[in-house]
């Protein structure tokens, strides 16, 4: 069962459809009690980093943190991945989950923002989520802020400079692009996530 966390930021239909296409059962919830028993938690998200405040307001942040420490698998997509870090210059007062150290920042000046379209992701270290995914692969991005390259960066994309396309730390995964919109390569990553034992 894939538990898709709804915090009223954007559209969950595409992510749901991709997991269902892979044969997964998907539940969409905003209820911390449902997340408390989830094995595979997915936090998608688009738009502004400030929207993630709703996760804390709804009591979801603490539950997600607790479930991660208990061994549940977690996947953040787009703003959901950015939220895994400590903070973002897009909304400096909003705290992220802090599962990874670092701050989300805007692209360096000179790069046309937003970064929209298909770019390449290159594997930099062994990775469970990128297993069986060719390197480099084309994936679909749409964002204005990005995570720096950190120790947990397993996939790197270059736009202006190198940034984190995919991060992975134990049972915690983050994807900045849209795997649900990235053809076969993206579906493979979602499949890898769905197949993780819990």
């Amino acid at each position, binding site marked *: 069962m894939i538990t898709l966390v709804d915090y009223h*930021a*954007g*559209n969950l*239909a*595409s992510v749901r*459809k*991709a997991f269902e*296409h892979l044969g997964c059962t998907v539940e969409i919830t905003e209820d911390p009690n449902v997340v408390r028993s989830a094995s595979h938690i997915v936090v998608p998200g*688009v*738009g502004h980093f400030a929207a993630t405040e709703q996760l804390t307001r709804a009591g979801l942040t603490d539950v997600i943190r607790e479930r991660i420490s208990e061994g549940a698998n977690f996947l953040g997509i787009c703003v959901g991945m950015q939220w895994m870090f400590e903070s973002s210059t897009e909304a400096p007062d909003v705290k992220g989950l802090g599962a990874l150290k670092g701050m989300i920042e805007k692209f360096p000046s000179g790069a*046309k*923002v*937003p*970064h*929209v*379209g*298909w*770019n*390449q992701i290159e594997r930099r270290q062994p990775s469970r989520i990128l297993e069986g995914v060719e390197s480099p692969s*084309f994936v*679909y*991005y*749409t*964002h204005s802020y990005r995570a720096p390259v950190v120790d947990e960066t397993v996939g790197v994309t*270059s*736009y202006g400079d190198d940034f984190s396309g995919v991060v992975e730390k134990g049972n915690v995964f983050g994807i900045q692009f*849209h795997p*649900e*919109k*990235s*053809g*076969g390569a*993206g*579906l493979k990553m979602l499949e890898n996530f769905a197949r993780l034992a819990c």
Partner: protein
Amino acid sequence: MLTKRIIACLDCHAGRVVKGVNFVNIRDAGDPAELACLHSANGADEIVLLDITATHEARNTLVDTVRRTARDLFVPFTVGGGIRSLADAAAIFDAGADKITINSAAVADPTVITAIANRFGSQAVVLAIDAKRLPRSCGKIGAEVYVSGGRKPTGLDATQWAKEVESRGAGEIMLTSMDRDGTRSGFDLQLTSTIAGAVSIPVIASGGAGSVQHFVEVFRDGNADAALAASIFHFGLESIGELKQELQRAGIPMRWPL
């Protein structure tokens, strides 16, 4: 490297894909769900489905067509035609679209752009601008925005309107040259580069695609981020894969091989 996008457009009428010249004389070109999958498999970077009769017949895009088309499509999917409100947009997103495109509704009430962007993100709001060139004045490129499927002039200047929709939260601009649409005589390069230079959000060039060289020009000289075409694909004049390989050889970055 960020690649330039090739977008296949499905103009739909009553649940079927059609193609016309200058918005009239439409003919049948197939089933949207089938064509979307086919284009995606052949290398289309994105699919756009436009219900071309929705606005003037006051009929909403068939949500079922969108749902059916989205089902097995895993590249970005944009839907437009007859979307007038946040509620209309929400129904289309719920059916599986990733982005919506609006034109007439945004001109009638520009706050609808911000309303949809605030709820679904700017990346989900593609502003369609149908523009027709005005006679040259003082060496400047002038173009007027039209609505209602190219039927109604608005008096708005295309460049000014592009800047305004960006400031109101649109994430991309789909710029159709009404002068070139359906003619296969090439994109309007000056118009495209003028708009692309006026905004920082991506500009999708549309109207006039007829050959590989037209695509090379619109990326190289028109500064388009993406180019959209419909008929040249449906009628087998070019495969998208062939087109992308040719563009790659011409030095345009492409998502190829897939």
